[in-house]
C-alpha cells in the first residue's frame, strides 16, 4: 500500500478519570473507505473528535501526510485537509443553507462584503452533486433532519478535503439519498480522498468499505479487509459474542382495535390519513424524506393540532390538544430528534428516564427518590445503556446510548399506543436487537405500535402491516407477506396506487 494519508498511534483519552480510549491505532490510505466499527459508546466519535481538534488527546501521536501534527482546533483540522460530518449535526438553524455551508470561509469582495451570488452558485453546485433539491436560501432550521444531513454532506464536499470523516451520515437518510451519497463516495475514492466511515448499518458498511477497524470498550480489536470478513465475524469482534437473530420473531396475538385514526388532516402537511392499529400489532410507516410521517406522529401526540380528523383509542374518541392529553389517553411517543425533542441533555439519565413518570413516583407530593433510583437503574440495565451511573448527564452519553434513554423513558408508563419515530437511529446492532425484542414483548402485552422508520429492512421485518406515505397522503398499504422493498419504494415515490 502507498504511504498512509493519516496515521493515529496509541491514542488514549479519559473523561474525568474514565478512560474511553485506550491506545487506539488507526491508519487511512488514499482512496480508501475505512469503516470504524463498534458498539454504542465504544469510542468511535471520541476518536474522531480528537482527529478534528475538538478534544485534546491524553496520549498518542497523529501523522497527516507523513508529518506529525498536533491538532488544537477544528480550524486547524480543516487547514490540514480533514473534514468531518459529525454525528450530532452542528448546524445553525437560523442561517440559510448556503450560509451554513460556507460558515467561517465566506466568499467576499476585497472590501469584506459577502459575494452572495458566488455563495449561492457554489452551494447549488455541491447540493446538485448529491442530487438533492434544497434551496440555498432556505433557513436550515426549516429543513427536516434528513435534509440537514444532506446539507452537512454538501458542506464537507465543498471543503475539498483529503481526509473525510463520515460519522453516521446515513442515520437520517432514506434509500434514495443514501444511493446518491454512495455515488459521491465512489467518485471521491477515485480522486484519492481517504474516508473514515462510521455506521451501524451493516449492509452499508459491507458494501462501501475497503477495510474495517473495530473498537470495543475503547480498545483496538483489529483491522480486517472487508472482502475477507463476513457479518458474523464482524459482530463477533464488535460485541464479543454472537447475535443470534437480527430481527427476533414473536408470537402474534392480535387484540381488538386500539388506535383508530380517521381523516387526519393538517393543512399543507398531511391530508386524509386513516388507519387503525390493533392491540399486539406493529404497524410500519414508510416513506421518503419529508413524506409527512413525523407529521402524523406529531398530530397524534398533540405536538401540532389537527385541522380535521378523529382519533379514538379502544373505541373511545379522544381529543388531543397538547402532549399531556395524548399521554393521558395512553399514547407514548419516541421522537426522531433526540437532541431537540427527546432529551434534556443537561440533566442526568435518571431524571430523563423518570420525567414522564413522576406522577407514579410521587406520594403526598413528595418524590420517592429511592424508588426512582431503583426503577431507573433497572431500566439502564435492561436497555444496556452504557453510563458510569444513572447520575451521568445524558448529554455526555454516546449517541446510541442517548437513543436508548429516549425509548426507556416511555416504558414505565405502560402506554396503550406507542409511536416510535426512527427508534434505532444510530443504535448498534446488539442494542437494535434488544430494542426489537422489547417491541415484540410490548406488542405481546397488547400494546399497539406505530413504527416509523427509514430503515426499510427494519420496517419490513418488524411490521405486521406497512403503510406507505407520499407527499402527505397514504399511497399504499401492504400486509406482511406481500410487502417487499420494491413495492414499498414504488408506493413511496408516488407510483403505486391503493388497491381499494
Amino acid at each position, binding site marked *: 500500500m502507498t504511504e498512509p494519508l493519516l496515521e493515529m498511534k496509541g491514542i488514549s483519552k479519559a473523561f*474525568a478519570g474514565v478512560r474511553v480510549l485506550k491506545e487506539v491505532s488507526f491508519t487511512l490510505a488514499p482512496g480508501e473507505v475505512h469503516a470504524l466499527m463498534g458498539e454504542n459508546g465504544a469510542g468511535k466519535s471520541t476518536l474522531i473528535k480528537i482527529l478534528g481538534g475538538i478534544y485534546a488527546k491524553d496520549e498518542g501521536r497523529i501523522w497527516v501526510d507523513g508529518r506529525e501534527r498536533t491538532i488544537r482546533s477544528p480550524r486547524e483540522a480543516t487547514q490540514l485537509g480533514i473534514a468531518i460530518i459529525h454525528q450530532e449535526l452542528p448546524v445553525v438553524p437560523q442561517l440559510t443553507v448556503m450560509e451554513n455551508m460556507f460558515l467561517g470561509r465566506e466568499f467576499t469582495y476585497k472590501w469584506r462584503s459577502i459575494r452572495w451570488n458566488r455563495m449561492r452558485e457554489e452551494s447549488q453546485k455541491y447540493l446538485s452533486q448529491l442530487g438533492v433539491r434544497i434551496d440555498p436560501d432556505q433557513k436550515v432550521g426549516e429543513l427536516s433532519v434528513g435534509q440537514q444531513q444532506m446539507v452537512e454532506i454538501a458542506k464537507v464536499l465543498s471543503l475539498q478535503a483529503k481526509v473525510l470523516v463520515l460519522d453516521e451520515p446515513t442515520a437520517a437518510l432514506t434509500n434514495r439519498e443514501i444511493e446518491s451519497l454512495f455515488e459521491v463516495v465512489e467518485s471521491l475514492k477515485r480522486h484519492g480522498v481517504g474516508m473514515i466511515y462510521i455506521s451501524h448499518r451493516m449492509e452499508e458498511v459491507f458494501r462501501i468499505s475497503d477495510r474495517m477497524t473495530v473498537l470495543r470498550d475503547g480498545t483496538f480489536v483489529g483491522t480486517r479487509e472487508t472482502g475477507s470478513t463476513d457479518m458474523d465475524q464482524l459482530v463477533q469482534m464488535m460485541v464479543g459474542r454472537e447475535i443470534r437473530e437480527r430481527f427476533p420473531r414473536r408470537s402474534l396475538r392480535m387484540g381488538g382495535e386500539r388506535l383508530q385514526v380517521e381523516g387526519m388532516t393538517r393543512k399543507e402537511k398531511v391530508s386524509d390519513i386513516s388507519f387503525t392499529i390493533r392491540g399486539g400489532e406493529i404497524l410500519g410507516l414508510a416513506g421518503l424524506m419529508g413524506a409527512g410521517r413525523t407529521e402524523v406522529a406529531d398530530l397524534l401526540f398533540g405536538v401540532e393540532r389537527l385541522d380535521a380528523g378523529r382519533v379514538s383509542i379502544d373505541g373511545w374518541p379522544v381529543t388531543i390538544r397538547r402532549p399531556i392529553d395524548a399521554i393521558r389517553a395512553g399514547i407514548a411517543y419516541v421522537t426522531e430528534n433526540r437532541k*431537540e425533542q427527546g432529551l*434534556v441533555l443537561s*440533566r442526568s439519565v435518571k*431524571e430523563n428516564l423518570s420525567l*414522564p413518570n413522576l406522577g407514579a413516583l*410521587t406520594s403526598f407530593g413528595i418524590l420517592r427518590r429511592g424508588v426512582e433510583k431503583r426503577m431507573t437503574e433497572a431500566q439502564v440495565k435492561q436497555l444496556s445503556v452504557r453510563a458510569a451511573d444513572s447520575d451521568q448527564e445524558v448529554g*455526555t452519553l454516546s449517541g446510541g446510548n442517548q437513543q436508548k434513554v429516549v425509548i426507556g423513558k416511555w416504558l414505565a408508563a405502560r402506554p396503550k399506543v406507542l409511536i416510535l419515530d426512527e427508534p434505532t437511529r444510530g443504535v448498534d446492532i446488539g442494542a437494535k436487537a434488544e430494542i426489537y425484542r422489547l417491541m415484540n414483548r410490548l406488542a405481546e402485552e397488547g400494546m399497539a405500535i406505530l413504527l416509523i422508520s427509514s430503515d426499510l429492512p427494519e420496517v419490513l421485518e418488524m411490521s405486521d402491516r406497512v403503510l406507505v406515505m407520499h407527499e402527505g397522503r397514504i399511497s399504499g398499504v401492504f400486509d406482511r407477506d406481500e410487502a417487499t422493498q420494491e413495492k414499498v419504494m414504488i408506493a413511496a415515490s408516488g407510483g403505486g396506487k391503493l388497491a381499494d
Partner: protein
Amino acid sequence: MQTEIKTENLKPGRVQQIGPLVGLGLIILALSLISREFLSITNIFNVLRQISINALLAFGMTFVILTGGIDLSVGSILALSGALSAGMLAGGMDPWLAVLAGLAAGTVMGAGNGVLVAKGKVAPFIATLATMTIFRGLTLVYTEGRPISYDSDTFAMLGKGYFFEIPIPVIWMLVSFVIVYLILKNTPFGRHVYALGGNEEAALLSGVRTDRVKIRVYAVSGLFAALSGIILTARLNSAQPTAGTTYELDAIAAVVLGGTSLAGGKGWVTGTLIGAMIIGVLDNGLNLLNVSSFYQQVVKGAVILLAVLLDRSRKK
C-alpha cells in the same frame, strides 16, 4: 477547550458545589484578617440579617432562572406588596391578615408575569421589565409618593424581632431555604423546573405542562418578593415607595454567583444562598474597612469578577 467544558459535566454536582463556597471562604478569610470587628458574633448576625432580603428575593429568582427565565420586577413587587400591607395595617386591619394579603398580592403579581411569559409568549426579560415599571408606577399611585407608616408591634416584630437571639428575618431566610431546597430536590414540580430550563420542547413532549410550571415559577418569585417587602416594611417602620429599586440585580447576581446558569436547567439553591452571602459579606466588609463609597463600587465589582474567574480557572 470543548473537552474541558464537557468533562466538568460528568461530575457536575461536586465541582459546582465547591466553587462558590471557596470564593466565599476566601473573602471571609481576607476580611477577618484585615478587620477586627468582622468575625464578631454580633457582626455575623448583623450580616445574616442584612442578606436576608436579598437571599429571599434570590430564592424566588432561582426558580425563575432555572427555567431559563428572569424576573426584573421583584424590586417593584417588593415595594407594592409592602405598601399594600402597610396601607391595610394603617387602615386598621389585623396584622396577620395584612401579611397574608401582602403575600397574596405579590403572588398574584408574579403569576401575572408568568401568564405574560407562558401564554403571551413575551420574552421574560421584556415582560418583567414592563411589569417592573408598571408595579413601581402603581406603588407610587397607591402611596401618592409618600411613605406609609403604620402602628403595629406584631407586624414590626416580623422584621425587627428576635427568636432566641436570632433575628427573625434570618429565621425567615433559613426556613425558606430549607423549603426551597426540598421542593427543588424532592418534588415533581422541582424536576419540571429543571427539565423546562434544560429543554422546553422535550419537557413538553414528556407531558410537562410547561405553561403551568412557568406561571407557578413566577408566582413563587412574586411570593418571595412580597415576603421580602413585608420584612423590609417591618424593619423600616414604614413602606417606602422607592423600596427595592435595583434589587433585582443583586438577586440575579446572587443566583449566578452561586453557580446557577442563566441559560436554565442547571443550578441549585444552596449556591444561591452562598452567592447572597458573598454579596452581603462584601458590602459589610467594605463598610467595616471604611472604604470610600466610590472605591467600594470598584472593589465590589472586582471581587465578584475574581470570585467567578477563580471558580472558572479552578475547574480547568
